[in-house]
């Protein structure tokens, strides 16, 4: 292995620059993509103004949840300031939380909690209003439920004692689990649903998976170039079998890839705040082994690198479409997911099926090389 690694290093050194480009592509490509998309998403939020007339806990919570929504970008104003900005169309609409908001909610009142201002150019008014109404309903519902439980407890003099906060937290937890209020809104002038889930952590690695596929394919071109060289006749006279020669070379590539994957993990963990776990290391490892074996086998089917490069780009584009990591174009389909070698990784699972397929084909390819060149 060390000897073969040494010989491989000699060859790598000659094309270090292009190799470095392809090895760094997944990290750089993903980072650029994620930052660009995040900026665009930020820009496409609807700017609204909020006037805070109530300093209560519930009002603060409401504002927090409005701010947390991906639909709007919130600025806080006094009423005059807000109206001034609305007139200049700096903001789409204004929502005023009146004094006594908490009080009103707790006593079950629903009218005149919030009032709003808009102009004829407030295109996003209805979805924003819908969002805020649903948030208020959510909050008042929770407040009432909490109140109800507390009252009940007092009545029956239960042994366990819950505080207001505990009950509220619990109910929020249930809400998140059940995903009850995860509605999506539409702008009145477009049919495109505005996504409410954010860039989840798997999106980063999903995008990375696509870039990795492309880079692995382009880096495996040696398998084609070297197959047609006269030097291969010499491999019949070396100390190892051809099976082991080629297998070790693929392992050299695997090691190199894993080294750069490690760099990726560090970069993503630190700069993109991706969570890291032992399980994920296995997910990554199995994904990489699968990429290595499959790309090598694929390269073996070609005799011209140009054709292979073209094919690589097409394969990558197809997987972009069916994986839906960049853009969810296709509806979710179990068969496609099953056939997509990237799917296990994108879902955060250990790649098993495609590793069995990849490694079996690889063994066959190498065994055939051994016997035909023997």
């Amino acid at each position, binding site marked *: 292995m060390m000897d073969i690694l040494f010989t491989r290093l*000699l060859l790598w050194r000659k094309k270090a620059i292009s190799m470095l480009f392809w090895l760094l592509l997944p990290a750089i490509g993903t980072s650029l993509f994620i930052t660009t998309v995040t900026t665009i998403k930020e820009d496409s939020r609807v700017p609204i103004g909020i006037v805070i007339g109530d300093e209560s806990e519930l009002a603060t919570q409401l504002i927090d949840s409005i701010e947390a929504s991906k639909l709007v970008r919130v600025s806080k104003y006094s009423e005059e300031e807000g109206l001034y900005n609305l007139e200049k169309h700096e903001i789409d609409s204004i929502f005023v939380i009146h004094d006594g908001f908490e009080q009103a909610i707790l006593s079950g009142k629903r009218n005149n909690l919030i009032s709003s201002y808009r102009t004829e150019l407030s295109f996003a008014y209805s979805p924003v209003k819908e969002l805020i109404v649903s948030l208020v309903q959510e909050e008042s519902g929770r407040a009432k439920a909490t109140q109800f439980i507390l009252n009940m407890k007092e009545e029956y003099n239960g042994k366990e004692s819950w505080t207001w906060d505990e009950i509220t937290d619990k109910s929020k937890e249930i809400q998140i689990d059940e995903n009850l209020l995860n509605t999506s809104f539409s702008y009145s002038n477009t049919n495109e649903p505005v996504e409410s889930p954010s860039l989840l952590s798997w999106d980063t690695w999903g995008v990375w998976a696509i870039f990795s596929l492309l880079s692995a394919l382009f880096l495996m071109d040696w398998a084609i170039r070297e197959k047609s060289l*006269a*030097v291969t*006749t010499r491999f*019949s*006279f070396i100390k190892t079998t051809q099976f082991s020669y080629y297998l070790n070379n693929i392992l050299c590539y695997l090691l190199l890839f894993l080294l750069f994957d490690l760099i990726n993990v560090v970069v993503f963990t630190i700069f993109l705040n991706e969570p890291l776990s032992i399980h994920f290391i296995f997910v990554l490892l199995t994904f990489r082994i699968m990429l290595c074996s499959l790309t090598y086998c694929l390269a073996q089917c070609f005799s011209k690198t140009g054709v292979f490069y073209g094919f690589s780009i097409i394969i990558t584009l197809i997987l972009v479409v069916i994986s839906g990591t960049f853009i969810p174009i296709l509806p979710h389909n179990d068969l496609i997911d099953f056939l997509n070698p990237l799917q296990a990784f994108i879902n955060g699972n250990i790649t098993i099926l495609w590793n069995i397929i990849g490694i079996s084909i690889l063994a066959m390819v190498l065994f055939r090389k051994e016997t035909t060149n*023997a």
Partner: protein
Amino acid sequence: MLDVQSLVKSYDKNTIFHHLSFKVWPGEIIGLVGENGAGKSTLLRILATIDKPDSGNIKLFDFPYETNRKEVRKSIGYVPQDIAIWEELSVRENMIFFEKLSHKSKSETQLRELCLEMNLDKWQEQAKTLSGGMKRKLNLAITLIHDPDILLLDEPTVGIDLKSKIEIGSYLLKQAKEHNKMIIYTSHDMDEINELCDRVMCIGKDLFYENILVKSGKEIISI
């Protein structure tokens, strides 16, 4: 000793060897001549174990090819007709590359000496910028890294300048006479064949080469 018996090889209906038998002893240089397509490369590939005859037996030092391929290969130095070197690596890197994969390990100094023996002095130069003669020398030097007992050279001197040709020739002569190696090589240069070879084998039905060789009084292996 290399012992070839009753070798038969044909591609489809095109019979190339029909019960070919001959022997080669250590220290001998055998020339292989014949027009293009006669089957010289085919014979060398069979002797180098990378092609299989339809029938017949070959033994190297009493090891049959059939059953001892792995052992036999350690003693074979095969120089293919196409130059088999890494174009993007330097002479030095090419030598080190194949030394790492070779049955015998050699120091860098030894590798360098091997090159210098046939006047290949461009140690650091990239293979692709070498002259044709230098490339052929490197092609030969790589084959010699594992000290093979038998050298099978497919047109080792084709298309190169006279000086390199003579340097390679005298190197081969030294290998045979001083190191007792068996050498079988092909060439179209009849002067070179006459100069170096102990015996010559003419392959193919054309008697053109045979007639030249008869005139020069070379010993011909009848097939």
